[in-house]
Structure formats: C-alpha cells, structure tokens
C-alpha cells in the first residue's frame, strides 16, 4: 500500500466535516482547485457556444441577445471565478507554506472564510445566470448596465462578494510571507513563485477595494439613480471606466504575476540550471505591481477622456513592457546551455514563453495611442488578451498543475498522454486566436454576433481551432482523472527540484514538516548541489 498517501493530509483527519471545517491550507487549496476547475469548464462551454455561433455569419445556433449573454457570462466567469483565484488561491494556497517552510498560512480561519466567500459569490453568479443572465460584457459599462433589463444587480453583487475572497487571500499571503518564513530563508533565498505571489497579493489588497466601491455605486445607480455614473442623471460614464479600470488593469497583473512565478520555478527545474538574474526577476515583479496602477487609461483612449490623460497613459503603458521584457530575457538566458528536458510542465512553460511574448508585444501595440484608435474594440484586442490570459496565465497554471500534481495527489499522470494534450492545446490555441489578430486588423469588431461574409474563412478557422483546443482539454481531463486512480506513486522528488516542497512526502502530511527546516542554500543552486530524481 501507499504509506505516504495513508499518512497524508488527504486522509487525515477523515470525514466530510473535517474537510468542510478544515484550516489546513492544503485542503483549502484543493477545494479551491475543484471549484475553479468547475468554473473553467463552465466558462469553456460558453466559449465553445460563442465559437459555434460565429462559425457562419447570421444566426447559427443562437439569437443576438443570447449571444450577448453568452460572451458576458464567458468573460465574467473566466475572469472573476476562474483566472483571478486560479493560481493564488488554488495552487498558491497549497504550495506557498511548503515553499517557505511554514506549517500553514498566517490566518487559517481567514483562509477558510475566503473560500466560503468565494462559494457565496459563485452561488450568486449562478443565481444571476439562472434568472436571466447578463448582457453587458464583463466590464459592466454604464450607461448600458444601468438600463439593461437582465439581472445586472445579482451579477455585480456576486463580483462584489468575490472581491472580498480575493482580498482575504492577498492579505493572508502578505502576512505569511513576511512573518512565517523558515529560519535562514531570507528574502533573496525565496523561490521566485513566492515573489510572484507577493507582488500579486499587493495588487489584490490595493486594487480590489476600488472595484468593490465601484460595484456598490453601480448597484446604487440602478436602484436610486444616484447620478454618479449615469449620464441621464447627470453622471459621467467615463468616470465609471476610470473606477473600473483602476481595478481591472492591475487585475490583469493579478492574473499574470503568479503565472510568471510558476514559470520561474519550472524553467530552472527542467533546465537543471540556476535561474539567470534572480534579483532582476524578483524586483521586476514588484515593479510591474507598481506600474500597473499608472496605466489604466489605456483602456479608454476612444472613450472621450481628455487628450492629455490619453497621452500620459499611453506613455506610461510603454513602461510596463520593461519589467515584462526583463523577465522574458532572463528566462531565455536560463534556458541557454541548460540540460533541458521536455516533460509536460516544460512544454507548457515553453508555450508560455512563446505566447506571452506575442501577447505582451501586441499589448504594446495597443498601448500606442494612435494605433489604438484603429484597433480598439476589434478582434485584435480579443486576440491580445487571450494571448496573455490564456497563452500566459492558463499555460502557466497548467505548467504548475502538472508540476505539482504528484505533490498534491501523490500520483503520477501518464506522461505521453500529457504531452499529446499539451501539444493539442498549443496548436488549438494558436489556431483559435492568431486568426483573430488578422480579423481584428482587418476591422472585425468584437462583441458582434454577425459579420461580413469576407470574414468567414478566418472565423471558421478560429472556430475549428477552438474545437482542437476543446479536445486537448478533454484528453487532459481523461489522463488526470485516470492518474488519481491508477497513477504510479511519485516519491518525494519526481522532477529533481531543490525547493522545500520536494523534501516532504507526496502528498505531504497534515503539518507539512515534522521539523521546521533550516535553509542554507538558494532555491536554484543546481551549480552547487546535485539532486536526484526519484
């Protein structure tokens, strides 16, 4: 029998209530993981429906109104219920204390509360979907969101609640990283994923409250017509956009920064080489977190904000490229002359490098004021943010999921199947979204259910790509579920990593470490230490 599994957090203590009332960060992380995977699936279903509708011009499977609801729900679910909690709350919750040699996060009860708040928000969102969905787009722009007859209030309220869950996770992580590092683990000996989570947490606590107040004002606008955002009452819809993007631009870095952290881990482990430019990567995370607060106006170039503001925001947007570029070059330098091995996590990591670079560079295009006027609200923007969110964050999430899967469940998945899945996802993704860059530059507007005949070939190609993508995920589902029952046991350290989580059994025991470790070496000292895989 599998002794590690029997003694692990998965089996101790036993019983349903021991899960529901657990304070163990590993169990909370796991419950989060199931929840976000569910919503990833739901959001994916909406995505396939959208692509199915766009297979041909005019009505294919749904009406224009239903189409508006489909893309709104796809966006809102993917952003608020999947991608924002995905890496920090699920993987981060599980791994962070292990990485820093702690027994738990600083506030375990708050951690559990954050999970239940997430569940409450999710229930509200589902309620809103059942009672008529929303058709405003995930951005809830006024004045349409004050007029739309769909259930805007319940959906915005759901997002409001979800915000608290995100804030509590961030708060918990900041304190954990400051106060609970094992002896000897100085700031600059921390694994880079910790830095990524730290920068993310800072954004979570600084930006999310502004989203909360924005949504409160939006709800009040609908109920009382308070006249802050609604032009009919003397309010200013562009002010709504300032409020919204003050949160939502930094929020895109809530999505990507932890992903960048994962990449920094996997890329060294699978190149068997010390990370290149540790300090540069660590500080660029903080730099990104800071600069991300200065650029929100680049979403509003065509919305009627003043030209001076547009110019300032455009200029500052270019600055974001610098720390992102620093990271990318350092990762490439890490690969150089490494002993690269191509297991599934590494395939996702390389996909990330490739796709995020395209996504980030097109972001710079869009940040250029003059070009943006042409490309705003076209499929070019859609392609940009899918390259960063799916090509960046989701690839990093999958890299992390595959990398830590043996640690989380104590099971190995079938490597060949995983490689096939990864390649299908990569190919499907590029088919789906590269075609959208072309569509957008030719003038195909976003959020339309119909289009000119001349766009059909590219739209159809994109839809076929999405089916390939869907198959890739289906393959993944099969081999991951299979591994839970039939997977081989991995031993402590299947990949030969040097960080602390690989020094404990897979899956880890409830209290993580029998004895709090003392840290003497850096997280990536492959030049000094010979690690063996087992």
């Amino acid at each position, binding site marked *: 029998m599998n002794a590690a599994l029997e003694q692990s957090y998965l089996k101790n203590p036993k019983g349903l209530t021991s899960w529901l009332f657990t304070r163990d960060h590993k169990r909370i992380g796991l419950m989060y993981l199931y929840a976000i995977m569910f919503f990833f699936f739901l959001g994916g279903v909406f995505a396939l429906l959208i692509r199915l509708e766009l297979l041909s011009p005019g009505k294919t499977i749904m009406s224009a109104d239903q189409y508006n609801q489909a893309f709104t729900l796809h966006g809102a679910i993917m952003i608020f219920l999947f991608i924002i909690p995905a890496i920090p709350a699920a993987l981060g919750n599980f791994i962070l204390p292990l990485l820093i040699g702690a027994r738990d996060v600083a506030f375990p009860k708050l951690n559990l509360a954050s999970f239940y708040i997430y569940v409450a928000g999710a229930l509200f969102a589902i309620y809103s979907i059942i009672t008529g969905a929303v058709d405003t787009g995930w951005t809830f722009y006024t004045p349409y969101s004050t007029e739309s007859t769909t259930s805007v209030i319940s959906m915005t309220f759901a997002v409001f609640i979800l915000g608290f869950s995100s804030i509590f996770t961030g708060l918990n992580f900041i304190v954990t990283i*400051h106060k609970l590092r094992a002896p000897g683990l100085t700031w600059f000996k921390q694994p880079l994923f910790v830095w990524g989570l730290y920068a993310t947490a800072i954004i979570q606590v*600084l930006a999310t409250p*502004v989203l909360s107040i924005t949504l409160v004002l939006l709800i009040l606008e609908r109920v009382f017509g308070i006249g802050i955002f609604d032009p009919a009452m003397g309010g*200013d819809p*562009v*002010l709504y956009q*300032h409020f919204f993007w*003050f949160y939502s631009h930094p929020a895109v870095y809530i999505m990507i920064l932890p992903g960048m952290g994962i990449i920094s881990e996997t890329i060294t482990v699978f190149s068997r080489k010390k990370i290149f430019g540790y300090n540069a990567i660590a500080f660029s995370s903080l730099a990104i977190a800071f600069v991300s*607060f*200065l650029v*929100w*106006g680049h979403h*509003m170039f065509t919305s*009627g*904000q*003043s*030209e*001076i*503001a547009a110019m*300032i925001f455009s200029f500052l947007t270019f600055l974001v490229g610098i720390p992102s570029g620093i990271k990318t070059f350092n990762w490439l330098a890490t690969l150089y002359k490494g002993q690269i091995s191509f297991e599934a996590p590494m395939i996702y990591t390389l996909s990330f490098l490739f796709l995020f670079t395209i996504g980030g560079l097109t972001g710079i295009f869009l940040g250029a004021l003059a070009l943006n006027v042409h490309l705003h609200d076209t499929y070019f923007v859609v392609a940009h943010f899918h390259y960063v969110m799916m090509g960046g964050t989701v690839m990093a999430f999958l890299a992390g999921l595959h990398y830590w899967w043996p640690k989380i469940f104590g099971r190995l998945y079938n490597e060949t199947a995983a490689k096939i899945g990864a390649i299908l996802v990569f190919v499907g993704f590029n088919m789906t979204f590269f075609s959208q860059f072309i569509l957008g530059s030719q003038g195909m507007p976003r959020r339309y259910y119909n289009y000119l005949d001349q766009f059909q070939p590219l739209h159809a190609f994109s839809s076929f790509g999405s089916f390939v993508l869907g198959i890739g995920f289906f393959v993944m589902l099969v081999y991951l579920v299979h591994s839970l029952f039939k997977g081989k046991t991995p031993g402590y350290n299947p990949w030969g990593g040097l960080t602390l989580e690989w020094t404990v059994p897979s899956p880890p025991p409830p209290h993580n470490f029998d004895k709090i470790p003392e840290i003497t070496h850096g997280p990536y000292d492959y030049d000094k230490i010979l690690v063996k895989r087992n």
Partner: protein
Amino acid sequence: MSEQHKEHILPIKAYLGVAGALFILTMVTVAVSYINLGGWNAVVAVSIASFKVSLVALFFMHLKYDNKINLFIFLIGISFVTLFIIFTMFDTLRRADIYEIKAKPIKEKAHIYERAPDDSTQQSDAAQH
C-alpha cells in the same frame, strides 16, 4: 526579539493631550468655515484635517512606536488614493481641451507653405498663435 518589541505604554495624560488638540483643531476648522476665504477655505480644511489624522494615526493608533512597516502601509494607502484622484482628474478637468484646438499647419516652416504667400487664411491662422 520579543524584548525590543515590548509594548510602549503611553501615560493617560498623553492621550488626553492628543484628544484636547483634536478638539481645538476641530473648533478652529469649524470657525474658519464661517469666514469666506474663497479657494483657501478648502486648503485650510484639508490641512487641518490631515493634521488631525496624523495625530490620531501616530498616537491613538501607536504608529509612532509601532513597527515601521505599519506606518508604511498607512502611507501607501493615502498615496494610492491621491494617485487615483489625481490621475482621474487629468481626464475630468481637461476634457474641454479638444474644443480649443485650432487647425494649424502640421509643420509651419515647411516649403509648401512658403509657395503661397498670398494665401491670406493661412497667414491669419498662423498669426493667432
């Protein structure tokens, strides 16, 4: 480690003194509000309020004696709110700009303009600037 962090216990008098200062400042700011200083009313009100806030934060909330990181967090909060307001106002206060811009030659000294000395509209437009 725990020794240096021992609680700093302020005497009751210190608390009373701070509260007294807060009361007096409140009376001052209310009194000033009855005098019309034009735009300066707002400046005075904000300054006095900020001073009161610093008193509360430093003494009632112990920031003066506490771990400095807590002070840092507090200041970050204030700065980001300020940043939010200022950047938003770059927009909201300057919206009218576009209506004040008059068309003018892109490159005034370019040769093409020199070739038409009798073009009067060109000249009057340039004279405005």
